[in-house]
């Protein structure tokens, strides 16, 4: 592993896009492409990144990039890879960038199929925890308690009542060669994982948490900070799965205050102290399992 801020390619491949200021997803895409380099072939479904990147005649990718159907990120990657292989091309990496809805909801079937076939592609899910492009609707990766436009917080229901689906473990359960979680708050870790995943022959998957200032109700300059805090407070974890083994990249000895993380975001504004305690308890239960899963071996 050699990629870092000094060795990273200085060329920009995702430039001039119309993402909101302070967009976590745009940062994830930009960094991943800089790690992979000019022979990355980006496949991006309908969603924020395609909406902000491909507005003819304002086209923001310097490498090859194509919009797929919403459900078809992984299957289009499969086809691109098969086509290039059949044409005898070498030295390219097909990389997908789909959001949480595009991955965990509508695109999960195609993703599962690609992993099952072990197609030589890298799938990156940039998770901003709701359908942001259509105006902040709940996805299956929206966390418990979050307010979205389809899980409004009122007197009767306090936002989203379901806990976040665990895509990382779902993907790992396929027996995939390599998958990992990441956060744009820890870019060195993310870059390491992209570099590693891109070097793998076969399907690899990275799930990178990428806050959306607009949807989460934070200031544009807080995006990276919040993405770091979600790891530090234990509500997100940085891990890898390779050759059947789970590894935790970061095990905070002590978690920072969940309430601080929650209180700074408008989407959780309605939560009471009791409910925030409930979230902290969910976190503790999850970590008990994680500790067992990762350290008992």
């Amino acid at each position: 592993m050699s990629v870092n801020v000094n060795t990273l390619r200085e060329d920009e491949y995702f430039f001039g896009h119309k993402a909101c200021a302070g967009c976590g997803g745009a940062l994830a895409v930009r960094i991943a492409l800089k790690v992979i380099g000019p022979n990355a072939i980006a496949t991006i479904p309908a969603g924020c990144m395609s909406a902000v990147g491909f507005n003819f005649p304002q086209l923001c990718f310097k490498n090859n990039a194509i919009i797929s159907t919403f459900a078809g990120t992984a299957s289009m990657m499969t086809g691109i890879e098969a086509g290039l292989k059949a044409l005898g091309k070498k030295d390219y990496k097909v990389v997908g960038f789909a959001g949480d809805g595009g991955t965990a909801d509508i695109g999960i079937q195609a993703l599962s199929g690609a992993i099952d076939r072990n197609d030589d592609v890298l799938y990156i899910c940039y998770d901003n925890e709701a359908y942001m492009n259509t105006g902040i609707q709940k996805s299956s990766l929206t966390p418990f308690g979050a307010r979205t436009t389809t899980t409004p917080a009122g007197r009767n229901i306090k936002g989203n009542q379901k806990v976040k689906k665990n895509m990382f473990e779902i993907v790992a359960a396929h027996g995939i060669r390599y998958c990992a979680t990441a956060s744009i708050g820890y870019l060195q870790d993310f870059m390491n994982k992209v570099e590693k995943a891109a070097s793998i022959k076969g399907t690899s998957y990275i799930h990178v948490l990428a806050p959306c200032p607009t949807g989460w109700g934070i200031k544009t300059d807080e995006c990276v900070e919040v993405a770091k805090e979600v790891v530090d407070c234990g509500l997100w974890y940085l891990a890898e799965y390779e050759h059947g083994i789970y590894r935790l990249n970061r095990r905070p000895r002590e978690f920072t205050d969940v309430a601080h993380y929650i209180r700074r975001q408008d989407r959780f504004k309605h939560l009471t102290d009791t409910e925030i305690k409930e979230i902290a308890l969910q976190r503790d239960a999850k970590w008990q399992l994680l500790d067992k899963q990762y350290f008992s071996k």
Partner: protein
Amino acid sequence: MISDVNEKDFTSLKNIPFAPAYKHTLVSVNSGFRTEKPVCNREKCNGCFLCYLYCPDGVISKDGESIKIDYDYCKGCGICQKICRKDAIHMEKER
């Protein structure tokens, strides 16, 4: 650093490609997104390049021991200012 702003007229039939496929093209800048702009104090900057790394728009580039900001495409999000450990970047109100 961005040089391929394209002035071609993309509204006439003959200039529009037959299929939705075209090279990297920029016809409009993003400076209008901004109400504040980041300004770097080169004296304080130690060239750690964290701001370059964390910029969602890739508008910060390395410039010797310090950095350079492309104000055509900077949206003024302020992430660079927050990430800077040397307090070398401050935000200035746009007129």
